[in-house]
């Protein structure tokens, strides 16, 4: 498989105490995303997940390290990388429809007006908001706003979609519905996606692999978890798959204990981060260990 996005030895330092000192938020971050893959990143607050995403988006530059997409280095924001922000970030003076047509006009500069409007309506239909197209964001509910944000991001057909806790601010019921919608859209479009989330179940439902970050400062992407569950998935059926609990338990263990243990061990010099992230397939390990027992 082709390495679509490659992140190599990423380091981010912030000046603190009026620039007298430096805080290393994360270092030695390495991972790759293949074309069509859905990758999530989970970690405790403050480990720098959002900074990683901003680096990928080109909104912020890493202190050291390289990010390249299709072998070209990322030097700034690009229409090739769509971003769905945590708080929807729709422009409040434009209607849902106008928010999307504006994005379409930015990406497809030569597209005639009618074509662009058709396209906008098609993507509003995709998230089920055609009837509310002329409403301003203030007239829409939180979930609807986020759906417009999703439609806007997909409408410019980005090669890579970046999502920063897309459903973090929504209630559980709305979140569930939007997750189902997103699963459907991603299956249909084979969209390459990078997502930050705090929701373990959301990560398992959507991802091909999940990156686990150790606690900051000096956080690392310590593990890369393979979610070995066939697609298409749905919220209802996924919990019946045996791999689901293996992955889920692994993630919970890591977040409760592992992320801090990794940090401590790195501090004490008892752990080498050269081979990070360590790839883990919890389901396969379980099968292997069973085989060993029976043998």
């Amino acid at each position: 498989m082709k390495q679509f996005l490659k992140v190599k030895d990423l380091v981010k330092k912030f000046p603190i105490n009026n620039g007298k000192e430096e805080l290393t938020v994360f270092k030695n971050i390495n991972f790759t995303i293949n074309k069509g893959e859905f990758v999530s990143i989970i970690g405790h607050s403050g480990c720098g997940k959002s900074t990683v995403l901003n680096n990928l988006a080109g909104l912020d530059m890493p202190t050291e390290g390289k990010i390249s997409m299709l072998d070209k280095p990322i030097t700034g924001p690009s229409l090739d990388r769509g971003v769905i922000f945590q708080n929807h970030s729709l422009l409040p003076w434009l209607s849902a429809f106008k928010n999307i047509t504006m994005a379409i006009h930015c990406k497809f500069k030569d597209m005639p007006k009618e074509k662009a409007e058709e396209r906008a309506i098609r993507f509003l239909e995709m998230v089920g908001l055609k009837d509310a197209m002329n409403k301003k964001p203030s007239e829409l509910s939180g979930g609807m706003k986020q759906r417009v944000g999703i439609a806007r991001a997909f409408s410019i057909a980005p090669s890579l979609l970046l999502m920063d806790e897309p459903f973090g601010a929504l209630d559980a019921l709305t979140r569930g519905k939007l997750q189902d919608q997103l699963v459907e859209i991603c299956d249909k479009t084979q969209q390459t996606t990078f997502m930050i989330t705090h929701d373990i179940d959301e990560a398992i439902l959507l991802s091909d692999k999940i990156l686990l970050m150790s606690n900051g400062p000096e956080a690392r992407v310590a593990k890369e978890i393979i979610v070995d569950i066939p697609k298409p998935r749905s919220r209802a059926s996924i919990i019946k798959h045996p791999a689901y609990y293996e992955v889920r338990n692994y993630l919970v263990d890591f977040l409760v204990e592992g992320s801090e243990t990794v940090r401590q061990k790195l501090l004490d010099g008892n752990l080498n981060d050269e081979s990070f992230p360590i790839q883990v397939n919890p389901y396969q390990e379980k099968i292997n260990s069973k085989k060993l027992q029976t043998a």
Partner: protein
Amino acid sequence: MTEKRKAILLSISLLIGFIIIGELVTGNGKRGGENLTEYQQLMGMGEPQAHVPGPLEVFKLGFKELSHPFYDNGPNDKGIGTQLFYSIARVLAGFSLAVLFALPIGFLIGMSPLFYKALQPYIQILKPVSPLAWMPLALFIIKDSIMSSVFVIFICSIWPMLINTAFGVMSVKKDWLNVGKTLEMGNFKTAFKVILPAALPTIFTGMRISMGISWLVIVAAEMLVGGTGIGYYVWNEWNNLDLSSVVFSILMIGIVGMFLDTIIAYFSTFFVYQE
């Protein structure tokens, strides 16, 4: 009864009460009796004395003035409408000129921390100066009293708009700017598609404040330079000891001021957004 109707009723009662009390405490200026000597008549004793007019007297005068608002019988006798027209024209000229300067400079200050820091001391020093203090300098340089009062309006209305524009531009949400960045908008496009619409409500607030101040200042400026305008009219009637006209002009100044504010408020409704 709804709250609104109660408010209307209360307003009307206050007006009636005000008229009654006004009539009771003011005189009509009549003096002496019927039998004046020829000498007394020659000295103008038959004419009413200067006095603070009662409400009805002002209304009567107002009715007369407003039925022929635009006459012009020479420098000392122009209709109230003509005088107001001069004042409004000066305010609009000075105000529009100020818009042309304040918006681009405000944008620059708002977008560039360098310009913000560099221009801040000048703004802070010039802003509190009474616009009338500029009048002698303006008269000397421009050598024209009408243009000088336009300049005074310009200088007093530029600050609130400048500061509000800069503030509006500075407080554009970072998320919206990020949307512009991820859509690869250039600086120019970001300024017009993101920053300007985001800042417009704040800019309009600045415009309303500026317009209010301009209308306050024009009266004083015209009192100073004379010739035409509502400020000159007030001062001229004071010299004529015609206090009814003075009170009537106060009323008219208030009404026009309200009207100017309402116009800008109306335009701003097209650009206000809710988050």
